[in-house]
């Protein structure tokens, strides 16, 4: 059964408060060269294969897995 890897990220225009705090923490650890940190979600699903698999994944992302008002998604199907 294919493994579907999905990454959900905040839209670039949205302030990522968590990412900013993590960036500050990295700087305090001495990694001055870190310019931006944005934190998202990563999911793995096992989805039954078929000709509809891509449209199903997009549906799942658009309806539930991501909030299209604030998030973007990308996915990869690993067979």
């Amino acid at each position, binding site marked *: 059964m294919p493994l579907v890897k999905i990454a959900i990220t905040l839209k670039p*225009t*949205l*302030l990522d*408060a*968590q990412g900013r*705090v993590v960036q500050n923490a990295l700087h305090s650890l001495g990694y001055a060269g870190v310019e931006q940190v944005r934190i998202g979600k990563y999911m793995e699903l096992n989805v039954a294969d078929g000709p509809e698999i891509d449209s199903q994944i997009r549906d799942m992302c658009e309806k*539930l*897995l991501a*909030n299209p*008002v*604030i998030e973007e998604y990308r996915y990869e199907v690993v067979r």
Partner: protein
Amino acid sequence: MAARFGVVRFPGSNCDQDAYYAIKDVLGKPVEYLWHEECDLKGSDIIVIPGGFSYGDYLRCGAIARFSPVMRAVQDFAANGGLVLGICNGFQVLCEAHLLPGALVRNEGLRFVCKHVPLRVENNRTKLTSLCTEGQTLCIPVAHGEGRYVCDKGTLAELHDRGQILFRYESDQANPNGSIDNIAGIANDAFNVFGMMPHPERACDLSLGSADGLILFQSLVQSVN
């Protein structure tokens, strides 16, 4: 004619009892709980979606609750002009269900904020705010970690132009979460669905510090009668 309230309960809702108490014991109106698996709104005139952590806030706040069977009934009810008030997690559920525009995200300061805040009534020509005066300050408690309201520029302009912004935190300093334009509560474009992050049901009894929230429930009752 008495206005009847229905208070929705999801697994993880925890402000349902406060809403029930405010409506039944303070306001003195009939109220019933609506379990999330039931599609029957029991003849309610006004639906309240209370605060809490429905489904543990898993995935995103309100993301899973919006697909509960009761929400199908609430969507139909709202489409037919029924009155719906979402408080805190309830506001999040309504945004996820696209009954209200925009979204609620993590507080800018990353802390859970729990305190009374001053709200300014921006529009008193709605069924939720009709008994308020425009510009009136209401002292209402907030208790949330993900209450920052966000929306794109086009949506913000529409909300502004149509008067859909019902409450703002009184100042930048009073804004507990970084909400765009200090927005604390909004209505949909048909003005029958309302969402607010502060908890008016926790401001109906002076022994809890403020009774400023009662006027909102009274406005809803008056609009039904």
